[in-house]
């Protein structure tokens, strides 16, 4: 058997906390970290969000920055979480700058938080506003910023496949390590809340006006969230200390059905999950828990639940983190991969939040014990699905 790819460090920022430990404490307490409306976004929409409870100045302070031009919130969130992951893995500065350590960031919002404010001014007075503030509009700017914060000089890129971006970022990093192009990689995703995405999802009528209810019969939409999550991946032969888990398999499959909707039979979700199992040489009965995409929109949860039932026959425990922190878009699989890695390492599962009544059209219910439960997890499957029918599943296995 060839060498495995291990998760050796984790970092996360979300509405539930500014570090992995803070996130875990919030989940342990059972508290949902959703706010009734955003406080850092210039919007009149009063919709519940999973907002990170720190303004940009505090995030800059955490990173020890003092900059002339403003840094976008996505880049700040990414740098905070990626730094935590690097510290956790104990990657030395020489390893980071040696060219064999890569960085892959999934993002879909990029620098929109600043661009949307700039553009409003630009419409009024195109010559009066300072274009220097939108230098970080594009996704690549986030990569460039985080690379320089961490001192990474090797391969770095941004992938953007909407809500599956971070899953695809982790997958690309693993494939590059497997191919021998990198020895280690920091991979995950980051997205901030913005007026643009709040209005975008609101115009599609898929935002709930109350805290979301993944897989519940009465679910009526998602809550947007923000944050960042990164894992450090390394080849097993380079690792001496105990890792969180191994990234045992992965798959991405496009559903080729609809630009924004899922097929009701969940064929894309099914193909991604079964593809990931195949790549890990596992059977459905080897999976002890499934972290679903579980956004709480009627369409996603029906498609995903149907696919789960088809693949696992309704026997596998599953849940969604969206009820705690909202849907953090391109960051979602980054933050959730971190929580999954902790789940596998500690053998611990948190109850899915926001569920009470089973939807008869789905016919299975998420795992909702009254408190977090300790149980052995050999293999955990984690899903993220995005616009364009872009479905990704990752397998995290105990080491």
């Amino acid at each position: 058997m060839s060498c495995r790819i291990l998760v050796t460090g984790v970092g996360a920022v979300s509405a539930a906390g500014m570090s992995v430990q803070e996130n875990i404490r919030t989940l342990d307490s059972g508290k949902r970290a959703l706010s009734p409306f955003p406080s850092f976004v210039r919007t009149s929409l009063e919709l519940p969000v999973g907002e990170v409870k720190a303004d940009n100045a505090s995030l800059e302070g955490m990173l020890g920055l003092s900059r002339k031009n403003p840094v976008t919130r996505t880049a700040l969130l990414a740098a905070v979480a990626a730094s935590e992951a690097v510290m956790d893995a104990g990657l030395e500065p020489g390893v980071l700058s040696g060219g064999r350590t890569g960085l892959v960031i999934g993002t879909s919002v990029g620098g929109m938080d600043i661009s949307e404010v700039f553009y409003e001014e630009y419409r009024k007075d195109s010559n009066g506003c300072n274009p220097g503030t939108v230098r970080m509009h594009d996704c690549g700017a986030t990569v460039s910023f985080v690379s320089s914060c961490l001192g990474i000089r090797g391969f770095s890129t941004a992938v953007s496949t909407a809500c599956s971006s971070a899953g695809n970022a982790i997958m690309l990093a693993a494939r590059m390590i497997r191919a021998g192009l990198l020895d280690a990689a920091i991979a995950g995703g980051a997205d901030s809340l913005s007026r643009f995405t709040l209005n975008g999802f609101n115009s599609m009528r898929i935002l709930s006006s109350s805290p979301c209810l993944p897989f519940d019969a009465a679910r009526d939409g998602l809550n947007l969230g923000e944050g960042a999550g990164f894992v450090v991946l390394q080849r097993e032969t380079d690792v001496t200390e105990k890792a969180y888990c191994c990234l045992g398999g992965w798959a991405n499959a496009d559903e080729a059905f609809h630009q924004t909707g899922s097929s009701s039979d969940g064929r894309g979700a099914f193909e991604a999950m079964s593809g990931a199992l195949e790549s890990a040489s596992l059977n459905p009965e080897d999976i002890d828990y499934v972290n679903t995409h579980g956004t709480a929109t009627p369409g996603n949860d029906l498609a995903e639940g149907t696919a789960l039932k088809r693949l696992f026959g309704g026997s596998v425990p599953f849940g969604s983190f969206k009820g705690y922190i909202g849907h953090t878009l391109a960051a979602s699989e980054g933050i959730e991969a971190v929580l999954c890695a902790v789940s596998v390492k500690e053998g611990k599962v948190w109850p899915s939040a926001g569920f009470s009544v089973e939807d008869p059209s789905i016919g299975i219910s998420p795992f909702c014990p009254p408190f977090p439960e300790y149980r052995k997890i050999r293999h955990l499957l984690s899903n993220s699905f995005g616009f364009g029918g872009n479905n990704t599943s990752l397998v995290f296995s105990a080491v």
Partner: protein
Amino acid sequence: MTGGPFQNIKYEMTMFIKSAYRICPSSGDEPDYREIIPDANMRRRMGRIVRMGVAAALKCTEPFPDISIGAVIAATSMGCLADTGKFLDEISDRNESMLNPSPFIYSTFNTIAGQIAIIKGIRAYNMTYVNRGNGFSDALVDAWLCLGEGKDNILVVSYDESTPVSTAIMERLGCNYIPDAEAVAFLFSSSDGYPCPDPLEGCLDPGTRLAGMRDMGMNVCSADLLYRQFISGVN
């Protein structure tokens, strides 16, 4: 656990270009979209760059109607700027209520890769890179990985557009950028076609990557360069 994700992997250094197609209106290279995307409603919903990216991919694969596409990989430095601007205008003009979701949906970075998959029914690996001037180079690395993993017929599309607003801002910032819009599509194979230069050479070289991070136009320009190499090589 046996081999797991490491089984059946064989990386070869040579990658072949089976077909390529470029749409560049400023050079007069633009097809009749009505023939390529016959559905008039679909054509109208697509913004200009989405239409161009999708059409380039469809024309690129047209000579091979029977092959199965193993992956769709897109690359851009800035994404669908016109639709992004349009939705920002909507938000301001309509004061955040009763907005038309179309420009939001089509502004998403992976719209073109997603639309290609839907139109051609490609239920396979689908990826989009948004990485300044390095997007196309990153997509080539991914194509190379896909071939090594046993997939074949990898469709790669590089595209970018500019709007009056983006051009004005780029000029004031002193950034190099493409003046209009361009989309270039390639079909890569592990077995037959025109030999492609080593995709790994530039992607892992820190100097080349740094240049790519500074030049927003390099995504499409490097695709354009490879297209011209291919055309002169096959003729």
